[in-house]
Each structure stands twice: as structure tokens, then as C-alpha cells.
């Protein structure tokens, strides 16, 4: 273990620190200076500070060119982590922008603070290969997200969702910790690559199998894969919209990245295929089936998005199953574009907050009442369905082709995935049908939405279309990051 | 070869007339009928010009045009006429002109009617000049569709059923024809009639069929016979030959009389033309094998139809069956030529065929005239045309009776009128060749005479039926219109050489080609 100066450590963790500091700054500002101002002003200033912090972090990340691995992988800095952290910070900016006009709480400072802390947690989470640091940051993230879910004190659904989330999460954390401790016991290390090296030679013992199952359970909960998904529908529906947006987008990205790292770096490959292969394949298949089939019968828009998220988690697990650099790249591309589309969809819902939209049928006739938002929603939902030339299509194509090129045996899973995509088109079209085809029976006037919201949502939609028509933009970045990696 | 495209021009003239009516005359009936008459008049003029330029001494094809059309399928645009074709063209032009003239004063026959008639004329011209199966078939069908609509839209009370029957029968025949020639194409790669006739002449057709169409355990002869019968069906329905004639009486009766003129005058001739141009040169051996059966069919057509005509009470139906009768003789004449004589009796064969062609032309003329007269009668009687509805019309409309009488006698075959030379030649030529059939067919002559005289007696002679005391006679215009046709009847009666001279070379060539 090389001693590293604290200054060096500070420099390397500066992005996370900046984000955390901005969280503290928002908190302080709001609780002291801005107490007497109006809600709108407080939100705006808080958002400004928060975004400034994130922008700062992004700049620091982009300008930084070094690689390092400190303390046996407790802090890892390479082009891949740089990429993911940048993306996370960017998504936080979007989430903050989308929350600017909300009115579900008066505790602006606390809210934004927790959001930024969660972001910092995520950035730490992806920048480490040490199981304990992973667990710690995962807990920080989870706690933040529980709080964010419960933030709407006036809504019983919010409290209920948070409670379920917390209980499930707590249990999942316990599983994860238990699995980590078993791994430690088996390999005498908590550093991923070291674990892999030690366990590589060993045959699959019952203890190792239990450890794998535990870890998969814990992390599977985080990514909302079946059968660990039961918290997701309630959380998506009950949480305040900006919180749900954050859960559905950034947290997914970070969780999948960690999942991938743990499985591919930490749990070793067996002679023919990784030990966890069949388990993950089963989880993937189950997620696809449960997510898509359940989404068909949903009547609430957010629950529909939640179940579709479960389905998408299944597709993304294919990237992990590919167990190759190409697979990882595909996973990252997919999760980023998926997160974009999801945050956009939640953004539209946030903009329409005042209409009290919950059921799919509440969206009837939206195309005449809010044409711009409807069009953006069209783009987001079609991207989720995988219709070209939108980003989601390339995500799916990339994941499926990398899965197949790594291992032809995954064919049956790919076929299932594509089949479930067809099913997903049905429920996405159902929503679009309400928006575009049906006429509203209740109200007819144009819906006024804040310009800022529309601009943000529009920007996200533009990105989705752009990434769909020119996937190379994102792909080159990911490929570059992967190529610079040692393994 | 490929000189000035006279034939194409002729074929397109009625089409141009039809298009002109469609584009300009819309609802204007007067303009439409003027255009129609002009177009068919010009067509007749062109036909006469063609006759003028035609070399009657040669039996070969003249005014040929040959262009590649769909090379990959072996389809060429090949047209040409010999004496036979020219006769048919002339016949069609005359009959169509008569039909259009008969509709001049018919108020229900609007522009659409004239368009359809002109389209039919194009179909006729095309059928009689085409020498490659595909575009021959195109024109064959082009004749069918307007006829269907003419019956369906302007016909009598039972027109729907009559039109349907007409359509279905003719369509079935056409399909059989198409299948037969598709099979031939698949076997030989040829669609051209002339080339196929050459193949048959060289004895290469049957082996080609056997070689390329492997139909289970059929012998080569069997395959050829099957194809022949399929093609024969197509023409047999058109002429018609019994027992494929059942569509005819209703169709003729329900069609407006102007259309019936076309049906009997021109369209039935399409069938006979097909026999002569297509079946006989390509399938002589097959026809010969089945000669006895075919002769029985011809005899039945000639004799039974006469009996049935006698039993009718609707004038139109009587003449409809009479058509079957007359054309039965023509079929008899054609079949006679196929009798194996080893090269002798060529003169008789030529005579028979000459008679057939004369008979075709004359029947066209006469039948058209007869149905025109019936149209005039219907107009005056308010739609009645039953045999027993009239009586003693001679007293109130002598000119009408006189002129119609001429036509009836022509149909009867009175010497001095055009009907006689044709029938005479047929019987003269056929008797030594197919004696028993000819003898039996003569019964038909007898019965025809009987019922025609019955018509004369019931309609024109006898006591005047008080109902028609005020029946108007033929107007000036009508007399003028009928004059050319009737004059032609006399001229051809005394001087049939006009027609025979046109066709004889072709006939002789056909007979010698057959090598039977």
C-alpha cells in the first residue's frame, strides 16, 4: 500500500468534494439567507448553486487526465470512471432543473442538499473497487434516496413508498453485506481483483455459491431486477416526481456500473463461463418477463414506467452476461440512453404536475393541450420502445449484438429480449394513443407550463434524437474510455 | 414488312373515337353519336382503302407489322391480313356502322353506349389482325368486356341474368383457350400463330408437346388432343356450337338490338375466324382424329337450332337460334376441309371454304339487317316483339314489310339474294367430302325455310291486327339508312365474285397447307 499524500487524495477526489460542498452550500444558503424569500426564488438560487457545483465537478473530471488506483483499489481513477461520473453529474443537473418548479415541499435547501449528497455518493460508488467502500457509498446513496422518496410530507403515498423502499433496501443491504463478508472469508481480501485472483483457482464451493447469490440479491435490488423489484412500482409512483426521476436515471446508471464491476472484476470466470452466469441469466429473463407483462395491465403512468424499468433492467443484464469489454460498453450506452429517456418522461410528468396526472387515461387529448410536451413524450416513449432512429434503438441493438458476439449461447435470451420489446411497444403505444388519438372528455384548454421545464425537456428530447441519429457521439467516448483501460 | 402501319391505324381509329367521346361529349348525346358514326365511317373507309391496296392474287399475309414487345416472353406485336382477315375487317366495319346508325334515334343510348361500341370495334379489328397469341387474346377480351356492359346496362328486363351468363360462358371459354396456349408456349416457346402453324406443318408440334409437358401417363397424342379441345372450347362458346350455345338466346334477346347486331354480326364471327386462323392450321391432325364427333356437333347446331327456332314465339329468339343454324353450316364447311382425301378433292375443299367465308359475310349482313328491322318494329310497338303480337302489317307498313321481307328471304337462301351463293357453295363442296353430315344438315335448310315463312305469314300477312292500325311505316331517313345494306344483298346475290375474289387465294393456300 503506497502512502499517498493527502493533497494527492484531495486532488483526486476533488469532483466529489465539489459536489458535496455545493450540497452543503445550498443547505446553508437556504437555511440562513433565503428563508424569507419566496419558494420560487429559493428553488432557483438553490438550483443555481447545485448546478454550479455539478458543472464544476464535470469540468474537473474532463480536464483531469491521470489514472490512479489508490489504496488497493479504494479509489480508482481512470477514463471509464471519469465517463460515468461525468454522466452522473450531468444527470443531477437535469434532475435539479426539473425540480425547480415543484411545490411538494418547502424544505428546498434540504432537498437539494440530499440530492447533491446522493450524487456525491454515486460518484464515489463508481470510483472504487473496494467492496467496503462500495457498500458504504451504496448505503449513503440509498439513505439519500429513501429520504428523497419520503420528501412529500403531504402525501401518504410518498411516505408509504419510502417505507417500503427503506425496508426492502435495508434487507437488501443486509444480504449484500453478508455476501461481502462471505467473500472476504473465502478470499481474504475486499479488493475486487484480488478476490478474483484468489477465487479463480477454486472450484465452486457451496459457500461461494451462497455468497454469489447474496451479492446478486443485494445489487439486484438496487437495479430493480426481478425478483427483487417489488419496491420499484411504489417508489416510482409515490415519490415526488423529481425524486423518482433521480431514482430512475442516475441511480440506475451508478448501480448498473457497480453491478457490472463486481460481477466481472470481482467474481471470477470459471473454466467455460462465469459462475454467476446462470443466475444472472435467470434474473435477466425473469426481469424481462415480469417487467413487460406486468406493465401491460398498469393503469398508472408511473407504475407503467416502473415496470418497464424492470424490463429494461433485464435487457441491461445482457450486457453484463456478455462479460466482455464490448458488453460493458454496450451496457453503458444502453443505461445512459435509457436514463435520458426516463428522466425526460418524468420531466414531462413533472411539468404537468399541476394537472394531477396519474392514470394513463388522464393523458387523453394531451397532444392538443400541450403539443410540445406531448411530442417530447412521444420521443421518450418511442426511445424506450426501441424505435429507430432514437437512442433507445441503438442501445438495444448494441447490447444484443455485443451479447451475441461474445457468446452465441445467449441467443435464446436475446430472442426473449426482442420478443419482450414487441410486448413493450404495446403498452407504450397505449400511452401514446391516449395522448394523440383520444380526445379529452374533461378539459380542453391549453396547459400552461413553465418555460424552463419545457426547455429542459426539449433539450433532453433533442439529445435522445441526436444520439439516435448519430450514436457515434456517445459511442466514441465510451469506446475511448474502454480502450484506455488496462484490461 | 413494317411499312406504313395501316392496320395499327385502323385498329386505333375506333379507340380514338371512344377517347374523343369520353373527353368531350360527356353528357352530350348528339355530339357523341356524331363522333361515333364518323369514327366507324372512317374505319370503314380505311378498310376499303386497305382492300384497294390489297393484292388479291396472293394468298400470303400483307400489310404486316412486326415489333418486339416483351422479348423475354416471346411476345411480339405481329399483325397482318390475308384475304380471310380482310374479309373480317370489312365485315366488322360494316356491321358496326350499321349498329351505330341503328342507335341514332335511340334516346337511352347515351355517350357511354357509343364509347363501349367503339371499344368493341377496336377489339374486333385487333382480333382479326393479330398474329401473336398474347395481343390477340388482349383484343379477344377487349371484345368481351364492352359487350357485357352493353347488355347489362341497356338491356331488357332480364338483362342481369343474361349478361352474367354471357360473361361466365365466354370467360370459361377464354380461360380454356388461354390455358391451352400457355401449355403450347411452355412446350414450344412460341406464341406466334404463323410460327406455330409452321411447326405443325413440319410435324414438330406434337413431339414438342410430348417432350416438354410431362403429364403423367398421357401419350403425346393425348396431350395434343387435350390442348386442342381446350382451345376448341374457347371458340365453340363464341360461335356458338351446340351444346355450348345456351348463353346465346337470352343474351341476344335481352341485349339492346343494336348490340345484338354486333353480337351476331361480328362477335360470333370471332369464333369462326379463330377456327380458321388458329385451330385449323395448328391442330389439323387433332381435328381430323375427332372429325366425326365434331361433325355431329356441327350437324346438331345446324339442325336442332332450326327446330328450336321454329318453336319460339319471340322474334329475337327465333333469329338468335337461326344464327346458330347458319353458323352451323359454316362450321360444317370448315370441318369438311379437314376430311382426309390424300390431296384430291382440293377443288371441293376450296369451294367449301369459299362458301364458308361467303356465308360468314352474308350472314353478318343479313342478320344485322334483320335485327335492325326488329329494333324498328320494337320502337313502333313499344317493346313488343312476339310472333303472335302482330298480323297483317303489310297493310299499314308496306315498305317496312317489303324490305324486311327481302332480308328474310336472304336468310332463307333464295337464289338472287346474298344468302344463296354461300350456302350453295358450302353444300356443294362439303357433299362429296362429308356426305352424311351434309345430307343431315340439309334438313336444317328445310326447317329454316318453314319458320321464316311462318314469320312472314304471322307478322306481315293475314288479317290486320287492329292494335297496329296506326303503325307508322319507315321514315325517309330509315329507308335511306337501310338502302345500302339491302342493295348489297342483291349485289352479292348476283355477283358473289366480289367476295370470293378477295378470299380465294388465301383459301387455296390454306387448303394446300393442310396436306390432307
Amino acid at each position, binding site marked *: 500500500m503506497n502512502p499517498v499524500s493527502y493533497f494527492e487524495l484531495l486532488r483526486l477526489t476533488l469532483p466529489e468534494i465539489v459536489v458535496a460542498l455545493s450540497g452543503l452550500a445550498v443547505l446553508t444558503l437556504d437555511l440562513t439567507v433565503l428563508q424569507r424569500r419566496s419558494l420560487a426564488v429559493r428553488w432557483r438560487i438553490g438550483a443555481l448553486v447545485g448546478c454550479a457545483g455539478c458543472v464544476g465537478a464535470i469540468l474537473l473530471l474532463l480536464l483531469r487526465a491521470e489514472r490512479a488506483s489508490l489504496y488497493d483499489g479504494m479509489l480508482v481513477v481512470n477514463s471509464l470512471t471519469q465517463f460515468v461520473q461525468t454522466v452522473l453529474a450531468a444527470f443531477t443537473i437535469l434532475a435539479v432543473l426539473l425540480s425547480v418548479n415543484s411545490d411538494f415541499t418547502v424544505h428546498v435547501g434540504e432537498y437539494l442538499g440530499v440530492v447533491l449528497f446522493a450524487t456525491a455518493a454515486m460518484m464515489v460508488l463508481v470510483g472504487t473497487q473496494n467492496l467496503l467502500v462500495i457498500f458504504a457509498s451504496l448505503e449513503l446513496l440509498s439513505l439519500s434516496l429513501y429520504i428523497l422518496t419520503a420528501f412529500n410530507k403531504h402525501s401518504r403515498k410518498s411516505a408509504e413508498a419510502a417505507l417500503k423502499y427503506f425496508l426492502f433496501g435495508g434487507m437488501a443491504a443486509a444480504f449484500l453485506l453478508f455476501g461481502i463478508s462471505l467473500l472476504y472469508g473465502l478470499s481474504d481480501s475486499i479488493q475486487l481483483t484480488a478476490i478474483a485472483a484468489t477465487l479463480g483457482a477454486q472450484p465452486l464451493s457451496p459457500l461461494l455459491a451462497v455468497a454469489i447469490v447474496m451479492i446478486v440479491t443485494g445489487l439486484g435490488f438496487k437495479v430493480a431486477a426481478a425478483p427483487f423489484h417489488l419496491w420499484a412500482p411504489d417508489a416510482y409512483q409515490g415519490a415526488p416526481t423529481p425524486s423518482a426521476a433521480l431514482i430512475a436515471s442516475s441511480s440506475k446508471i451508478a448501480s448498473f456500473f457497480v453491478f457490472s464491476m463486481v460481477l466481472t472484476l470481482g467474481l471470477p470466470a470459471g473454466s467455460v463461463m462465469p459462475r454467476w452466469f446462470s443466475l444472472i441469466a435467470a434474473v435477466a429473463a425473469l426481469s424481462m418477463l415480469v417487467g413487460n407483462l406486468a406493465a401491460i395491465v398498469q393503469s398508472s403512468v408511473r407504475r407503467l414506467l416502473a415496470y418497464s424499468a424492470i424490463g429494461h433492467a433485464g435487457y441491461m443484464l445482457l450486457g453484463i452476461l456478455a462479460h466482455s469489454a464490448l458488453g460493458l460498453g454496450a451496457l453503458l450506452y444502453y443505461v445512459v440512453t435509457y436514463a435520458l429517456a426516463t428522466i425526460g418522461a418524468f420531466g414531462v410528468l413533472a411539468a404537468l404536475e399541476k394537472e394531477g396526472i396519474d392514470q394513463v387515461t388522464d393523458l387523453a387529448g394531451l397532444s392538443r393541450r400541450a403539443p410540445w410536451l406531448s411530442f417530447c413524450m412521444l420521443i421518450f416513449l418511442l426511445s424506450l420502445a426501441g424505435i429507430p432512429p432514437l437512442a433507445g434503438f441503438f442501445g438495444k441493438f448494441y447490447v444484443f*449484438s455485443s451479447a451475441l458476439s461474445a457468446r452465441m449461447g445467449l441467443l435464446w435470451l436475446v430472442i426473449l429480449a426482442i420478443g419482450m420489446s414487441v410486448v413493450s411497444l404495446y403498452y407504450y403505444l397505449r400511452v401514446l394513443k391516449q395522448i394523440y388519438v383520444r380526445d379529452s372528455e374533461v378539459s380542453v384548454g391549453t396547459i400552461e407550463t413553465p418555460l424552463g421545464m419545457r426547455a429542459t425537456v426539449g433539450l433532453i428530447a433533442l439529445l435522445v434524437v441526436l444520439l439516435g441519429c448519430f450514436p457515434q457521439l456517445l459511442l466514441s467516448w465510451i469506446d475511448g474510455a474502454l480502450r484506455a483501460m488496462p484490461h | 414488312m413494317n411499312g406504313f402501319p395501316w392496320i395499327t391505324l385502323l385498329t386505333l381509329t375506333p379507340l380514338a373515337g371512344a377517347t374523343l367521346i369520353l373527353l368531350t361529349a360527356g353528357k352530350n348525346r348528339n355530339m357523341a353519336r356524331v363522333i361515333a358514326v364518323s369514327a366507324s365511317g372512317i374505319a370503314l373507309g380505311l378498310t376499303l382503302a386497305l382492300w384497294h391496296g390489297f393484292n388479291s392474287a396472293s394468298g400470303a399475309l400483307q400489310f404486316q407489322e412486326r415489333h418486339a414487345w416483351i422479348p*423475354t416472353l416471346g411476345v411480339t406485336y405481329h399483325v397482318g391480313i390475308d384475304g380471310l382477315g380482310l374479309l373480317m375487317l370489312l365485315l366488322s366495319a360494316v356491321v358496326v356502322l350499321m349498329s351505330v346508325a341503328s342507335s341514332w334515334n335511340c334516346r337511352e343510348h347515351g355517350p357511354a353506349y357509343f364509347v363501349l361500341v367503339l371499344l368493341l370495334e377496336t377489339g374486333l379489328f385487333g382480333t382479326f389482325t393479330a398474329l401473336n397469341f398474347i395481343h390477340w387474346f388482349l383484343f379477344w377480351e377487349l371484345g368481351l368486356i364492352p359487350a357485357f356492359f352493353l347488355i347489362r346496362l341497356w338491356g331488357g328486363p*332480364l*338483362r342481369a*341474368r343474361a349478361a352474367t351468363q354471357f360473361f361466365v360462358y365466354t*370467360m370459361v371459354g377464354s380461360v380454356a383457350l388461354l390455358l391451352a396456349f400457355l401449355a403450347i408456349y411452355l412446350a414450344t416457346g412460341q406464341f406466334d400463330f404463323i410460327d406455330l402453324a409452321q411447326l405443325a406443318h413440319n410435324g414438330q408440334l406434337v413431339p414438342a408437346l410430348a417432350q416438354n409437358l410431362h403429364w403423367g401417363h398421357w401419350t403425346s397424342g393425348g396431350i395434343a388432343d387435350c390442348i386442342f379441345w381446350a382451345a376448341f372450347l374457347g371458340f365453340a362458346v363464341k360461335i356458338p356450337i351446340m351444346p355450348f350455345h345456351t348463353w346465346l338466346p337470352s343474351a341476344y334477346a335481352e341485349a339492346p338490338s343494336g348490340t345484338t347486331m354486333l353480337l351476331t354480326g361480328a362477335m360470333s364471327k370471332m369464333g369462326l375466324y379463330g377456327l380458321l386462323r388458329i385451330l385449323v392450321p395448328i391442330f389439323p391432325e387433332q381435328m381430323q382424329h375427332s372429325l366425326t364427333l365434331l361433325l355431329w356437333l356441327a350437324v346438331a347446331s345446324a339442325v336442332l337450332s332450326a327446330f328450336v327456332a321454329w318453336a319460339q314465339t319471340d322474334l329475337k329468339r327465333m333469329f338468335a337460334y337461326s344464327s346458330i343454324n347458319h353458323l352451323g353450316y359454316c362450321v360444317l364447311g370448315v370441318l369438311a376441309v379437314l376430311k382426309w382425301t390424300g390431296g384430291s378433292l382440293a377443288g371441293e375443299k376450296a369451294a367449301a371454304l369459299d362458301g364458308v367465308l361467303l356465308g360468314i359475310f352474308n350472314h353478318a349482313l343479313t342478320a344485322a339487317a334483320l335485327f335492325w328491322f326488329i329494333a324498328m318494329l320494337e320502337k313502333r310497338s313499344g317493346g313488343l316483339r312476339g310472333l303472335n303480337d302482330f298480323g297483317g302489317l303489310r297493310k299499314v307498313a308496306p315498305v317496312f314489310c317489303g324490305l324486311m321481307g327481302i332480308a328474310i328471304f336472304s336468310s332463307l337462301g333464295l337464289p338472287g339474294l346474298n344468302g344463296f351463293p354461300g350456302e350453295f357453295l358450302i353444300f356443294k363442296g362439303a357433299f362429296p367430302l362429308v356426305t352424311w353430315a351434309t345430307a343431315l344438315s340439309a334438313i336444317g335448310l328445310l326447317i329454316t325455310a318453314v319458320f321464316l315463312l311462318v314469320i312472314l305469314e304471322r307478322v306481315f300477312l293475314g288479317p290486320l291486327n287492329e292494335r297496329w292500325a296506326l303503325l307508322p311505316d319507315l321514315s325517309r331517313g330509315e329507308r335511306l339508312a337501310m338502302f345500302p345494306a339491302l342493295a348489297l344483298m342483291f349485289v352479292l346475290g348476283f355477283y358473289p365474285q366480289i367476295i370470293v375474289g378477295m378470299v380465294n387465294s388465301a383459301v387455296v393456300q390454306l387448303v394446300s397447307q393442310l396436306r390432307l
Partner: protein
Amino acid sequence: MLAWTIYISFLGAAGLMLAPRVNARAARLIALLTAVAGFAISVIGVCRYTPGTLVTVTRVPWIPSLGIEYHLAADGISLTLLLLTGIVAVAGVLFSWNVERRPAEFFALYLVLIGAVYGVFLSFDLLLFFVFYELAIIPKYFLIAIWGSTRREYAAMKLALYSFAGSAMVLIGVIAAYVEAGSKTMDLADLARFPFPLHFEMWIFPLVFVGFAILAGMWPFHTWAPTGHAAAPTAGSMLLAGVVMKLGAYGCLRVAMMLFPRGMEAWGFRVLGFGSWRGLFAVLALIGIVYGASVALVQKDFKFVVGYSSVSHMGFVLLGLMTLSQIGLSGAVLQMFSHGIIAGLLFAVVGRMVYDRTHTRLLSELEPMHLARVIPFAAFTFVIAGMASIGLPGFSGFVAEFEILIGTWRAFPALAVLAGVGILVGIAFSWRALDKAFLGGAGTGSPVDRSPSATVLPRITVAERIGAAILMAATAAVGLYPRILLDLIVPALQSPLFDGLRKGLWR
């Protein structure tokens, strides 16, 4: 330059969507101009084209890391279908001249669909092909769901899901082929040259073929077609039956058969009498022909008659494809063009001319109206369309069906005979529809009355006449002089692209 057919269509659509307060009149004009421009470009492209070559329109790297290019190219077959799209597009706009509800969105969706179709026919990169192919699904859904008639939401969803399922099957095949060929290229020519292992081709060919054939209306996956066509608005049906079904057939030829020809070889064993995918698909095509025609014969709804007739005609296309002979394949491509025009004409008559005026499509309700006297132009157009549809010589259908029959005779003689039966049934249902809808029925019986029809209907508009004239002229032109298209198609079939096909079972 041919790429501008795509771009102009999309630009037109964007213009219609973004411009505020576009009224119906402006929307129609923009749509018409765009469609005419697209057609004009296709015509110019054909005039400049040397038969037998492959004209590269655009070729730029798109996703270099995956070896995917934005590659547009055209050969004779593509050009034939581009012409078809142009003609039907223009006619479709003319027949939608009376759309009053949300016209800007209607024409925008219409133009997006046209643009996507142009894109499919011009694509020479497999992924780009797929992108355009899928892109076409969503406009179809909305066109039917918003402006359609009977059970439109159900029909639209069924159509969208069937199409998507078909393209999902194709996607599996595309990805598998891409991976098998080394994940280096998606170029159609390169993939056509790549020697896939036989066992691989044996399962990929039926997968991709069936995926495309679903959209082409192959029995028994055709059930979306009659419902969808009947529910769609007139221009929608014209495009759907006229052009979109051809996307499927084109995919069968360009992707399934060109890339995986060995998939059609004999299996070496027999299942239920079939020894190869080729034999199976040929029989399915034939069933489609006869089934489509037979069911059309008993329909009570006029539009369903035409819908099922489309299934029947597409059966001919698929049968022609399976003959694997030059004459059969060129017949199949010609039939794609021919049926596109004819279907457009038939749906125009049924939808725009009859239904928009009488508001009923039931033959029993149309019978007493004696439409032939009320709207004679419609009757006339239907007669021409009917004649073309049954394959009468002089119209495009004849040459196409004739070539297919000859090809089928050489490959599967028994099927050729049965296909002939299909044509006969076709004559029957065409005649029945004409009789009942226009001529006042009673084709088999009772005396017909002569009194003028009591129905009074609006006249046929100029736009409809022009649209009908364009379509009738197209089918007659190709019927009378098929070489305009055959000279494009036949050399294209002889190009090196189809080498794999030729080396195999070509005859």
C-alpha cells in the same frame, strides 16, 4: 440525388408539424408538392440510370466502431419500387384532398411514412435498412388510429404489433448475421458475399424471411392486413397495401434471399412432404393466393373484399420469389409494382369515391343505390381496376402474373395449376363486387328496374379524377409496354449481388 426523395419528404413533414396554424388547404398543397417532388426525382433517377449497374447515392461512415455506414444505393429493382412509391404517394395525396380533421398532422405523418419507405428502398446497409423499416411503423399506427374508420384503434394496434413482431424477427436475424460475419460490416454487398455456414443459413433464412413475409401478408400471418386496410383512411390503405406490403416483399428478396440463399436448399429429409424452406414457403404463398381470393368472394364489406384481394396478390409475389428463376423473380418484382398501383386504385374507389359519399361499405346496402348511374366515373375506374386486378392483358398485372406462372410451372408445376385456380376465383370475386356495388346486383336473377336511382351523391372531384387517371395510366403503360420496367429489373437480377442466389438453385 435520389437521397433527396427521403430528405424532401422528411422536410415536408417537419415543415407541416412546426409551422403554426397550417390550414387544410396549405397542408394539402405542401404535401402534394413534396410528393410530386419525390416522384420527379425518382423519374429523373430512372432516366439517368444505366441498367445493370448499382448506383451509389451516398456512402459515409455512420458508426465506425461498429462498421455501420450510411449507405444509400439503387439498382433496377430499387428504382422500380421508388417509382411505385412516387406514383402512389402523389395519388394518395390527391385522394386525401378532403381530409378536414387535423390535416397538418395527417399529411405530416403521411410524408414521414413516404420518406421512410424511400429510405428502405434506397438502403444498402443492413442496419440502415432496418432503421427505415422500423421507422415506418409508428406513422402507420397513428394514421389508422386517428383518421381511420371501423375499429380503428384495434386495427392500428394489431398492425403495429404484427409489424413490430415481424421486424423483431428480422432484428434477431440481422444481429446474428452481423455477429457471425465478424461484427465488421453491415454492407449488403459485403454480407451477400460472406460465406455463412450452411447450418447458420438454414435457420436464419426462414427467420428473416418470415419476419419480412409477415409484413408482406403471407398466409397465415396475414390477419393484420384485411382489418388494417379496412380500418385505415383511404390514403392509408393505398399506402399500406400499395407500398408498405412491398417493403416486406422487398425485404424478403433483398435481405433474406440475397444474403442467405443457401437457406433455401434441401434439408435432406422430409417433414409433412416438405423438403426445404423454399417448398414450404411456395405452398404457403399459394395458400395465400387461393385463400385470399376465396375469402374475398364471400365478404360482405366492400373494403374487406379489396383487403383480401391484396393478400391474394401478394401471394403471387411470394410465389414468384420462390421460383428462383429469372423469369419468376422478375415477375415477382413487376407484380410488386403492378399490385401497388392496382391496390391503390381499388382502395381509392372503395374508400374515397364510395365510402366517403355513401358512408357505408356493406355490399348489401350499396346494391340498391345503383352507383353506376350515380357516380359513373367510380364505376368506370373500378372496372379498369378490376380488369387490371384479374390480370387481363393490356394491364400490368398480366405480364407480372404470367411471368410468375411460367416460373412456377418450371419449379412447381402443380402449384402453377392451383395458382391458375386462384386467378379464376379472382375473376369471380371482382365480378361479384362490381355487380353488387355498382350495377345494382341481381346478377343472377330477377328483373331489374329501370327507374332512375333515388340516391344523390356529390360528384367525383377533380382531385379524384386526376389521381385515378395517374394510377390507371401507370398500370396501362406498364401493361402495354412492360419493357419500361423489365429493362430495369432483369439486368438488376443478373448483377453480382445475386451471385449467391444464382450459384444455388437458379434455373
